[in-house]
């Protein structure tokens, strides 16, 4: 404790040094800042080391009940809280005192492509909430999904997009075995697998309003060995009372492992609903794993996961949902669980225990507040709810990033945050990583490239525009390169349905590229797409109008956009 207090004094002294030096001469500023930066970083390192020791000691106490007095436990808890607070203060100071150099521009071409095919140039629907799957072994093949209705087919299935030329052109086919439109859909192609055309898995939610809610929300886990075949996907399993399926897949030792995070309303009344559906045989059979081991009344809709080649699987969810008076906001805990054999064991996802209660599931942040207005357009015509993303370093499964959205209490509507663990989720950065507290932003998606560069996709409401950013960083956002993919009016077109842009979007890393999809206003205006854009649908960029086959104007709408951006070196 005394050591920590001493460090705080040192920290404050250093802050004063900056203030003092800033009123002297430019050269002394630089000298003072250079010294200060080194000192602050060293202090953060020291604090992080002591924090790890304190957390380990506390964990020992809770693992061996009776070995520590209540006073000792309280002491450790206070020391942890103080260290975390010190680290946060030092990081903020570091951001101000030591503005880092911007990383180099990515070399190579940035690609932004409107997914609507040429022959659907007259479509005007709100194609929100896109998702993307890439065939790793043949990355020219990709499959994308969105809230695109089946209004060009008369029979059954919901549509899905595919590309077989690396995203330059896209086609739409109605091969998803869900009636007319999906209420939620995500897609995955097992990474590291060798199916020539990409063994595509879809987790799609069908909404049949002839059944009572939530029986009407039916999950279909579907598969096709060739998404280019034009053949309807096979339903591998289905069940009702499910929300927001999020699929990831990975091939390990010729075994296609399929993971679907869901909010499962089949769980007992007033109990946890965060669930992971797992298949170790390519989706032939699934087992459901309840993830939240605490007495939580509800979980929030998103359950997100990240898989690594060494079989490590992380899953993040929101626990202990407590409605606040009025019912338009809730407090909850951000929780991460881990399994080192991909869930293929008797008691899966027990690897991370929280030192405060020794239960499975590390609480990254407790008692955060989210606005819950799923039927109200709140910001730029979009509804606000629960945003969550999780990513693991492909070459180091100990290195994990988590991103989420909440109401930070500073007058903003919604704020995104990113934190990191470098010890397999045991400890997490105690405050947001530098430059990752993003106000009035939604649709966070994180991915880590082969070279360790982390990518962050989000959409920010700025000056009545939705601005889509892809941020890359070599050093956990201390320095970063921001690429604006789109900056479009947020007030038009008028919303048709919710979500307006989506409750999520998608980012992945493939080789030396970040690839992803987002939805945005489709006005063909090059000023809206600073990194360039390609339309397949008929458009006149001089007149800034969408057109039909006769050159007549077609109303603007929300379209899905694919992008690829080279990873910075």
């Amino acid at each position: 404790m005394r050591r920590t207090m001493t460090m705080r004094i040192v920290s404050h002294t250093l802050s004063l040094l900056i203030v003092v030096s800033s009123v002297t001469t430019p050269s002394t500023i630089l000298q003072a800042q250079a010294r200060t930066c080194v000192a602050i970083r060293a202090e953060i390192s020291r604090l992080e080391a002591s924090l790890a020791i304190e957390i380990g000691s506390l964990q020992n106490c809770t693992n061996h009940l009776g070995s520590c007095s209540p006073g000792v436990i309280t002491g450790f808890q206070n020391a942890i809280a103080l260290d975390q607070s010190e680290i946060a203060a030092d990081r903020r100071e570091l951001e101000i005192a030591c503005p880092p150099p911007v990383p180099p521009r990515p070399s190579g071409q940035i690609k932004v492509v409107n997914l609507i095919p040429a022959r659907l140039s007259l479509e005007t629907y709100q194609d929100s909430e896109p998702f993307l799957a890439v065939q790793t072994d043949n990355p020219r093949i990709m499959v994308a999904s969105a809230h695109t209705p089946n209004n060009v087919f008369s029979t059954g299935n919901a549509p899905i997009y595919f590309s077989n030329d690396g995203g330059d052109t896209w086609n739409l086919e109605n091969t998803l075995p869900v009636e007319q439109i999906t209420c939620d859909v995500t897609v995955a192609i097992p990474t590291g697998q060798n199916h020539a055309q990409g063994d595509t898995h879809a987790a799609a939610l069908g909404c049949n309003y002839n059944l009572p809610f939530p029986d009407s929300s039916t999950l279909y886990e579907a598969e096709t060995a060739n998404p280019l075949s034009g053949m309807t996907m096979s339903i591998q399993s289905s069940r009702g009372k499910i929300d927001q399926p999020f699929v990831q897949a990975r091939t390990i030792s010729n075994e296609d492992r399929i993971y679907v995070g869901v909010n499962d309303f089949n769980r007992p009344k007033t109990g946890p609903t965060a669930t992971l559906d797992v298949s170790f045989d390519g989706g032939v059979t699934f087992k459901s794993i309840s993830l939240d081991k605490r007495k939580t009344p509800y979980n929030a809709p998103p359950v997100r996961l990240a898989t690594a080649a060494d079989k490590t699987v992380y899953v993040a969810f929101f626990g202990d949902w407590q409605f606040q008076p009025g019912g338009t906001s809730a407090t909850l805990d951000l929780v991460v669980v881990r399994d080192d054999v991909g869930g293929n064991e008797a008691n899966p996802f027990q690897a991370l225990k929280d030192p405060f209660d020794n239960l499975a599931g590390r609480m990254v942040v407790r008692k955060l507040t989210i606005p819950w207005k799923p039927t109200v357009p709140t910001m730029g015509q979009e509804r606000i709810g629960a945003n969550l993303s999780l990513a693991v370093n492909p070459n180091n499964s100990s290195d994990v990033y988590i991103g989420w959205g909440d109401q930070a209490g500073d007058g903003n509507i919604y704020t995104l945050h990113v934190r990191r663990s470098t010890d397999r989720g045991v400890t997490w950065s105690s405050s947001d990583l530098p430059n990752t507290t993003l106000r009035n932003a939604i649709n966070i998606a994180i991915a880590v490239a082969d070279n360790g560069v982390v990518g962050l996709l989000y959409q920010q409401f700025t000056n009545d525009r939705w601005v889509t950013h892809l941020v890359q960083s070599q050093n956990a956002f201390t320095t970063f390169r921001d690429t604006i993919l789109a900056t479009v009016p947020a007030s038009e077109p008028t919303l048709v349905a919710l979500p307006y842009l989506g409750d999520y979007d998608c980012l992945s890393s493939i080789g030396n590229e970040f690839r992803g999809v987002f939805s945005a206003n489709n006005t063909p205006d090059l000023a809206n797409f600073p990194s360039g854009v390609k339309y397949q649908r008929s458009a006149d960029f001089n007149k800034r109008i969408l057109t039909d086959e006769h050159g007549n104007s077609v109303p603007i709408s929300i379209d899905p956009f694919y992008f690829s951006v080279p990873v910075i070196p």
Partner: protein
Amino acid sequence: MVTSYLIREVLCTVMLATAVTASQEITDDAIAVSKQSSIIFLGTVQLQGETSFADVPKSTYTIVVRVDLILKKPTAVMLREGENVTVLVKDPAKFPRGAHAKFYTDGWIFGSGVSVKELGHEIRETILAANEERILSERINRQIEDQDLRSRVNSADIIVVAQVLEIRPWAAPSSDTRRRYISEHDPQWQEAVLEIQEALKGAESHLKIVLRFASSYDVAWVNSPKFKPGEQRLFLLAKDHITGEPKALVSGSQPDAYIALDPGDVLSITDAPRVRARLTN
């Protein structure tokens, strides 16, 4: 869904008349296959075993057809007369190069070109004038609309012209033991209290009834009808067998509750004469 697949399979095997005229009797088969089709056109077979654009899987079942006359297509699709499309046919032997046919199809793959799946066809030995084809197509469309309306009229428990007096929130009663669900897809049920102005089927004028509807604009419910106080509409309603609570409270009594979830459950009052005609026939 299974039913629709069966219908489709049956329709695929339908060989319709080899020649028609605009004035001839329209068969049930023609109506059924037209209803199933999203794209109907007259065309001339150009190539067998080929495709009209690269992203369509080529097989012995794909043929390239020049579109001569478009009779039906979805609004979103950009398709021009004179251009080639790919048709996935059931029996390629029935489509020799140069054959003229009316193609009843559903969309297959849309990209730089258009490809469709054959649901049925009519080989045309005699080519009708475009105007005659359009008249014939219109007659079929009217019959389809008529069948659909007749089906709705028959299946509705009540049909009324009514005014919306009040909109009120509604939740399942406390005796409902189901859990609360945290989901963006919650329907956000509301009740509309209606005053019946004219009873066409199964009800009495001047009564008040309660209609449940999903007020949510979530993607799951956006197409289901929404209401505002003061609106006057023609309602074709079924009793509420969906929400789990079959009764509603209105004017101190508990009559059957009704529900409107399909866009066709509510029509304009100008449709009343059409509906009356179906009731009397």
